[in-house]
């Protein structure tokens, strides 16, 4: 894939403030140049472009790239359309003794949502493959933390398995 010369606007490079659940014991290296503000639709495109770029470098299969880019689109689009303020997109490379993967955090300090798990639990909401349930089933690990007035943080992980190697 040809990488166009994109000008990434400067953003706040302070470390993520949202609590990140530790699911496994692994190392993480944040890609600082890939920290993006999420404020408008073009940022959604940029976020998925950056994600594809990172995933391609790690050697993920095209199908996984598509799934991942789709999940990123769903989550960042939620920020643009519903958060009521801009958010931050961060991506990091994770690794442990056996495998490597990507961790993506999309956070905002916007309206937030009450009982976010209901969006995950209700299978009917994801029947059309969109929104949080749609994003959840496209990644290996999905975690959402949100409360009204405090914003939302979505953490996603994909791991490179033998099949995708």
């Amino acid at each position, binding site marked *: *894939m*040809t990488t*166009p*010369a*994109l*000008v990434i606007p400067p953003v706040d490079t302070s470390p993520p403030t949202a609590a990140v659940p530790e699911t496994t014991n692994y190392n993480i290296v944040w890609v600082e140049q890939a920290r993006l503000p999420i404020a*408008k*639709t*073009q940022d*959604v*495109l*940029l976020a*998925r*472009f950056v994600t*594809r770029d990172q995933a391609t470098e790690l050697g993920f299969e095209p*199908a996984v790239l*598509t*799934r991942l*880019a*789709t999940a990123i*689109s*769903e989550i960042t*689009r939620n920020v643009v359309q519903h958060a009521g303020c801009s958010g931050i997109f961060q991506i990091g490379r994770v690794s442990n003794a056996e495998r490597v993967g990507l961790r993506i955090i999309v956070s905002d300090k916007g309206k937030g949502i009450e009982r976010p798990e209901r969006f995950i639990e209700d299978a009917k909401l*994801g*029947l*059309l*493959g*969109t929104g949080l349930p*749609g994003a959840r*089933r*496209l990644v290996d690990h999905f975690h959402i933390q949100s409360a009204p007035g405090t914003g939302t943080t979505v953490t996603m992980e994909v791991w490179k398995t033998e099949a995708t190697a």
Partner: protein
Amino acid sequence: MHMRNPQERDRPVAAGRFQCAGQSFLKGCRRLGQRAWRIANKSKVRVRRVEASSLARRLEEEKKDLFALVGEMETEFLATGDGLSHLARRLANIQQECRSLSDLAMGQTQDAAVQFAFQLLKKAEDLVLASYDQYDHLFATFGELQQRIALLSKQHEEIMRVLLPLNFITMSLRIEASRQPAEAQAVFVSLAIDLNRTVNEVRATLEQQIAGFHAGELIIQALVQEISASIQRHRLEVTTALVTSRNHLRAFGDALCNAGAGATELSQLNHAVTKHIGGIVMAQQCQDITRQKIEHVGEAMDEIRNQLDDSRPAAMESGLGTRQFVLHAGQIQLEQVQGVFDELNRAADSVKAGIQGLRSDSGTASDAAVKVGSTALDETVANLCQNGISGILAIIDQAVLRIAEILAAFEPLQAAFINCTTKATSLAGDVRLAALNAQVFAIHAADGATLEVLAGRVRAVSDDAIPRVGQMGAELYQTAQMVNNLGQQLADFQALGKVERDILTDESVLSKEKLAQLEGAIPLMVERISCQQVAFAQSVDAVLAKVQFPTTVAETRSRSLEFFEYLVTWGGADGAGLAMDAAASGNIDRLRANYTMESERQAHAAVLLTGLPLVRAATGLPSSNLLNDVPSAPAADSGAEVFSAGESMPEQPMSEILSASTTIPSTPQPTSVAEEPAEEVALGANVELF
């Protein structure tokens, strides 16, 4: 103790003789009576022997009938078991198909077609919306550019106004120079010519640049107007395409959901059908324990017959021991046979209920399958959705091309701004230099007071013009920067748009393939399930027609119980309630011992082992597998082992005994839509093991 009266001692001897005669008469009578009794007794024994012989024959016949019943039950079980096993396998296949259909239709897979298409639409919409953002930014920038060009025009006019006096000043310089010596005259004329040339050059250049700005502005304005109009059209087209594609996908998704829901409903109905099959198999399993009990009853009947066949005269003469034995043994057997038939009746009721449920539910499932089969799927949806996505991608293409056009239009303008900025800066320097030169020459001239004044005026014009030119230069620089930023941003978006468009184009091809596969696969699966379910319902009727078990049990029950009741009645005649002799009592205890749990378990294991070849023949499974599936008897100290030998077995339904002794480990089943791990369902699913 009775005492004799003394007066009676003196009675006459005659009376004694009469008494002797009477006594001999009585003896004779007694002998006669004894003979008559012997004759009657012989007749009675003969009658008893006839009765016993008849009873023994009936015992033999009844035993044969009971074993015939067991044999018929076993034969029927093998025959129907084979049929039910076949049905269970077919049902398992249908269930598997239902699960696959449900998963496929409900989009349970990660890359489900409809979801993939929906996500693709949203991603394409992102790109379109981002391009609109770019256009909005372009329009905003263009509005600002127009304002800036207007300002530049104004600044240009101001500069021209400021420079205008230089024409008169240079003319005055020439006139004044003509009064000077030839050397000075040449210098000032040359100075005047330079000033004139500079001013003319500045005027021409700035006018040309400003005219260029206006021309560029007009071109861009025309482009912006065109883009603005086309964007309105595109917004409408994209909105329509998105709405249409989503509607198609929704309709398709709804049809798929209906098919999936139908498959789920069918699966649930088939779950009930499996349960019925399991129930029938479970109920028919009673033949296993029935054989065991009938074996014991048969042994007891042999024992009774042996007693009846016993030709010992003493035994037959009194007849009491035989009747007592027959009475007690008959009561035990009656009780056992009643128990057996009660269980068989319950089993028959279960089989009848199972058959009724199986017929009813398989019929309902068949109807449901036909309903699922009639699920309408729009076969053109893949093309329609593809067209919608293609339309959106075409708009994205146009957007990317338009941005390229805009970039091309802005490029000369951007160059013009930069060029103009350079010229303006150079102009300011030239005017200032001319003013300085004029002042220097005027000082050195012999009579240069007038020249000095004129040079001062040139300097004043220069001082007035230079900041104005500087302001204009700054404005030009900012405008150039603004245009440059816009160009950079548009170029970035163009690059991103191209990458996204290429990816989305590939994904749209994939999406079309997925939708087309789904369109092709779902109707085929639905049709296959529908046909299988209808054929299954027909097979159910054929298999159930073979089940005669409830009728056979009902017929045999009344006859058999009637016989054992007669047996008890016969044994109870004359000798009922009397204590048994030791031998008869021992025999009865031995018979009772047959009905202990331990004895039943051993007999059951023996039946299973001897029955294996038959089952193997019916199922085609190797006997080793079946043996492995038969659980070992519980340990002696287990909670179930609470009855000692000789203690009669309490009433225990056969189903409980069966469930305790013939639990077949179920094979792992795929997750069904409605999980109900009932024993009968597992039994129905594993019916081939029987």
